[in-house]
């Protein structure tokens, strides 16, 4: 009895040590840049990043936000202009498409769905050159609208896939009950299916928002004028060729990542539910 309890205790301790070690390892870089972002440049350069005693300052954050050279304020504005429509538009269209894939049968349905999966598997780099020419022809190169278009279409495939799997898990009787009560297809979709899919919608919104917000590659290729730079590009410009202000760069990074972090915190309740719903019948 005692031995068994002892074994249990050891197991408990080992698991805790492993999990804590992993967690610290995971969070360490974040702690590192937080520390650096709060120190004056002179201290970071001399004493390194791990130095609790010393001077603390918010100057880096103020600089990152306001300096006209790499103003994060403009970056944030552009990022929001790109990210919000790039989340809402594909979400709306993909939700409708996913519902059709989930509930209706039509010619070439399987083929279309397979196409969707192929698109999902395609690396971004493969499409960048044709997209460049396309946007150029459409007059959308170096325009935020162009980037919105690219992100929206890129998001359509995976969101349709994700939501289709979620809709598949909803009981059909729930919709049939509404149909018998006199509701049309659109009515059923907007009044019954969508509200019931809030967890999935929230998950999709969080993932797509983070994806678009954190995107660097497309933004780098399709936006060239500094006044159009999104936040991630602005952060990159904070790193000079010969001189790197680590504090400024860290502050910029933390500010940039704070938006998706806050979003995740707000949507966490739904997000977890949505992911569970997805994995149950994926």
């Amino acid at each position, binding site marked *: 009895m005692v031995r068994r309890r002892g074994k249990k205790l050891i197991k408990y301790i080992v698991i805790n040590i492993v999990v804590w070690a992993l967690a610290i390892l995971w969070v360490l870089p974040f702690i590192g840049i937080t520390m650096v972002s709060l120190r004056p440049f002179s201290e970071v350069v001399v004493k390194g990043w791990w130095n609790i005693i010393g001077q603390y300052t918010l100057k880096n954050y103020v600089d990152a936000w306001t300096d006209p050279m790499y103003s994060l304020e403009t970056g944030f504005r552009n990022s929001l202009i790109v990210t919000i429509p790039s989340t809402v538009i594909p979400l709306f269209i993909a939700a409708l498409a996913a519902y059709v894939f989930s509930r209706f049968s039509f010619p070439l349905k399987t083929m279309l769905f397979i196409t969707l999966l192929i698109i999902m598997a395609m690396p971004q780099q493969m499409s960048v050159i044709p997209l460049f020419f396309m946007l150029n022809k459409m007059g959308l190169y170096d325009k935020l609208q162009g980037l919105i278009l690219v992100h929206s279409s890129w998001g359509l495939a995976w969101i349709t896939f994700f939501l289709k799997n979620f809709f598949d898990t909803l009981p059909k009787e729930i919709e049939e*009950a509404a*149909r018998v009560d006199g509701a049309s297809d659109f009515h059923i979709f907007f009044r019954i299916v969508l509200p019931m899919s809030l967890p999935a919608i929230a998950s999709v919104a969080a993932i797509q928002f983070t994806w678009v917000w954190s995107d660097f590659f497309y933004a780098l290729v399709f936006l060239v004028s500094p006044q159009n730079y999104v936040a991630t590009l602005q952060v990159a410009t904070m790193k000079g060729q010969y001189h790197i202000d680590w504090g400024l760069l860290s502050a910029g990074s933390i500010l940039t990542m704070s938006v998706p972090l806050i979003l995740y915190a707000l949507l966490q309740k739904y997000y977890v539910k949505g992911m569970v719903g997805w994995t149950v019948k994926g």
Partner: protein
Amino acid sequence: MVDVHLIGITKRFGRVVAVDDLYLDVEDGEFIVLLGPSGCGKTTTLRIIAGLEKPDKGRILFGERDVTRLPPRERNISMVFQSYAVWPHMKVFDNIAFPLKIKKYPPEEIKNRVRWAAELLQIEDLLDRYPAQLSGGQRQRVAVARAIVVEPDVLLMDEPLSNLDALLRVKMRSELKKLQQRIGVTTIYVTHDQVEAMTMGDRIAVMNAGKIMQVGTPEEVYNKPANLFVAGFIGSPQMNFIDARIVETDKGYVAETETFTIRLPEKYKELLRPLRNEKVILGIRPEHIYLEPRKHTTLAAIRGRIDFVERLGSDNVLHIDTGGKIIIAKTSGNYAYKVGQEVEVYLDLDKLHVFKQDGEAVF
């Protein structure tokens, strides 16, 4: 309120024929039960009446109106589903009000009607709650309230009680029946539970393999089953079936089985004549087999030995070996029978059924 007519309805799913040339007339205000084992096509039939499935052949009439090609919303029906299908994101009030809102009733009338339905179902206190805060029985009441609130022409119910626990099911059975009588709506009710069917239905349509086997009052399907299937499906324990041959003797007709011979009553003479020397199946219900003689009935006595006893409290179900053929008898629970005991078994010939080889009942 309206009468319903199904005329030659056929529905296939791939190669499977779910409903096979089905005819059924439901009278105005009637409570009819579609009863049958799983997969017999009863739910498909109900869904075709609802408009949730399109029949491959046949027509559906509501009164004079042909609704075969109409979508559900143009049929003025309501349906209660097995899983209740109440919407979790709407409060009880909004669940019940939903069909009224769709049909664009004025807000004041919506309130009045929801209150009326909620009072009928005794859920007035729950209107402000979400379905997740309700018990299974309460959710079922919400589903029923939602179904009656529009005063539909036809109310369809698909095994609405099968998710409830046994006690609640018995209670809801009588409540639903009373409710139906009170509002007088034509009701088509699907179940695989024969007790539900017998206690609730004005008439029962027994289904098997996509076809209707018999339509009749509960007494008719119980006392005069049209065929072997109905005889076997209705009644618990199941009717005893014994292979026999009809033989004409100078004392009248007798049925010879492998283990015993019984003389059949004179009144069946005309019916039995065409079956001379034919193989038939005798059917007798366990409750019509006695272990003591009774007056005023025609009995046939055979010898047997008790093989097994199921004690149900109020009744005993006895498995009696009659020389190789086991027959089941249901007797009052007061008697203590023992396994191995030799007994005299009395078959009540007034309650005997005879079926032809193809299953059709002779009487």
